[in-house]
């Protein structure tokens, strides 16, 4: 067990080094450069550009640049090209903004997807089942920003739910209760929108897992010995069907960065995804690379966690 964990961590560290290398080279091999963001500006003289390039180490060979990046990242000295602010605190601030969105969306996904999928599997072929399957396909197929715009147009306008940004401007002097409620209301629609796709996908997984287990021989045995249908479904099937989903807790982590670009952009939410988007627009290499790197760390940590969790909850799995 311990040797498995140790070996696993080692493998992941090697992978992380490869990933950091790739994150660095993808960005530096592509033609766009930070010094070229504003080529039409007449006040940018060639010597200014040379100065900028020297300050950002852009003239050094790639492996040296890589070394500088890793060194600065490790010491926390890494600074954004755009405003010379340290990168890590900047990312941390945005992370704190993204967190409520992520947590609420995840909660919505998990509390909706499971009942929907389980009910659909137990009542296979019923009107409800067919309706939810079709609805799930529809939610996967609709462009996220198209649906969000429709919701903003109709729901937000009709119910008066605020949708832009993280809080209403000028609320700082209000009573705490109003401030908190304002924040909560701002959270509702963005998290619902980013949860919908997840609900659709996960509920279909849950349904097919349930069907898989419902078709097993031991379920027939349980029915044959005269157990009530509820006992069969909830005591014998549910646990086994839901086991694989324990591992999904780990796989959720990377969604923090990658999954949110579009929705944070639509709802002007100052989170990680938007930070990345702004960094891409301004060729802010340290931020882009560090975000990719952190996403990779989260992915590796997530898969590691899910391997371990799986072994903990499923006694049939032996780690070796």
């Amino acid at each position, binding site marked *: 067990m311990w040797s498995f964990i140790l070996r696993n961590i080692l493998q992941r560290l090697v992978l992380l080094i490869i990933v950091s290398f790739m994150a660095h080279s993808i960005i530096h091999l592509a033609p766009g450069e930070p010094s070229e963001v504003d080529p039409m500006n007449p006040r940018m003289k060639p010597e200014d550009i040379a100065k900028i390039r020297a300050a950002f180490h852009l003239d050094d060979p790639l492996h040296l640049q890589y070394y500088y990046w890793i060194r600065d990242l490790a010491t926390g000295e890494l600074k954004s090209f755009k405003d010379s602010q340290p990168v890590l605190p900047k990312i941390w601030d945005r992370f704190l903004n993204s967190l409520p969105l992520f947590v609420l969306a995840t909660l919505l996904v998990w509390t909706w997807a499971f009942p929907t999928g389980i009910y659909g599997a137990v009542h296979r072929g019923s009107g409800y089942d067919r309706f939810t399957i079709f609805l799930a396909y529809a939610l996967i197929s609709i*462009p996220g920003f198209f649906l969000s715009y429709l919701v903003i147009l109709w729901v937000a306008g009709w119910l008066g739910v605020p949708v832009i940004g993280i809080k209403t401007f000028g609320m700082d002097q209000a009573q705490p209760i109003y401030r908190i409620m304002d924040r909560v209301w701002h959270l509702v629609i963005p998290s619902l929108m980013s949860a919908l796709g997840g609900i659709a996908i996960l509920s279909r997984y849950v349904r097919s897992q349930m069907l898989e287990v419902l078709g097993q021989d031991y379920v027939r045995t349980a029915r044959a010995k005269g157990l009530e249908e509820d006992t069969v479904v909830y005591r014998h099937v549910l646990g086994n069907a839901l086991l694989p989903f324990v591992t999904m807790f780990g796989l959720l982590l990377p969604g923090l960065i990658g999954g949110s670009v579009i929705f944070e952009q639509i709802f002007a939410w100052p989170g990680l995804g938007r930070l990345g*988007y702004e960094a891409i627009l301004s060729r802010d290499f340290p931020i*882009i690379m560090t975000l990719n790197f952190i996403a990779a760390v989260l992915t590796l940590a997530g898969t590691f966690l899910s391997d371990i969790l799986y072994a903990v909850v499923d006694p049939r799995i032996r780690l070796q």
Partner: protein
Amino acid sequence: MNMTTPSAMPRVPAQETDALPEHETPWQEFLRIYKKDRLALGGFYVLIALLVLALGGKMLTEWWVVFDPETVRLPDKFLPPLAVPSEAVAGTDQPFGGVYLFGTDELGRDVFARMFQGSFVSLSVGFVAIGISLVVGIVLGGLSGYYGQVRLGIMTVDTLIMRFTDAMMCFPTFFLILTAVALLPPSIYTIMFIIGLTSWMGTARFVRAEFLALREQDFVMAAQALGLPEARIIFRHMVPNALAPVFVSATIGVATAILTESALSFLGFGVPPPYATWGNILSDGKGFIFDAPWLFFIPGIAIFVVVLAFNLVGEGLREALNPKLRRR
């Protein structure tokens, strides 16, 4: 009794045919199961219609001036669907049938013609991107499954390829696509390549797993024993057997690629002009959602229907090709 008539040909005794189950080739079995799924069948018809539309759109917009999607008619901007062109529009600039079927946009371009041309571009983005991802995925997966044990220096081919695949899977896909598309010069080919080169990992893993299983099968052993060249064993005997799951993920992949393209358009990194795609018509239309809602709803609903059709067909294929589900 005339012995030469066909009716007198020797017949299989009746009781034997009754005992045998009706013979069905795998293809017939596949069709039978697929046809039972009404949603998937509907999706299939939509896709056929779309293919005809896209090819027709490509030809008509190229060759026939009434379908020219780039004709600008400033007096006629923001006309609603089914509007008739004003008299200010010259005779050669008239839209097809003398009516703007889907209205006009902010430059007075015919939305119907633009959607028509866009159907070809959107579909080709999806197909080319998935084609690239299939080629990369099948080659890398096949190499790693078939030549996995060959050692290159310190590690085996399998280790090398699969660690690279794992590393690629660590990146947040959409963010990676966005980064690459933003840094590379904007072009439709860049977008196709980037989407293709960031979505092959699933295919590679599928193909590798299938190859590992197939290598042990008797027919591959037999082919090796016959001394067939390796290329023939791989491409003639193994690849066709490994393709079923790949087809399913490719169908769904086209849908994802079309959605990705529209999401990139929304962020301003989509296919650049002069190409009209459904994604960039939609994202241009969002600015006029109150004044000209048809500019937003027509492409949005079109993308929705087509992506839905691809997803339904993909799921139908999965059901029909999966022997495990079939037994139930």
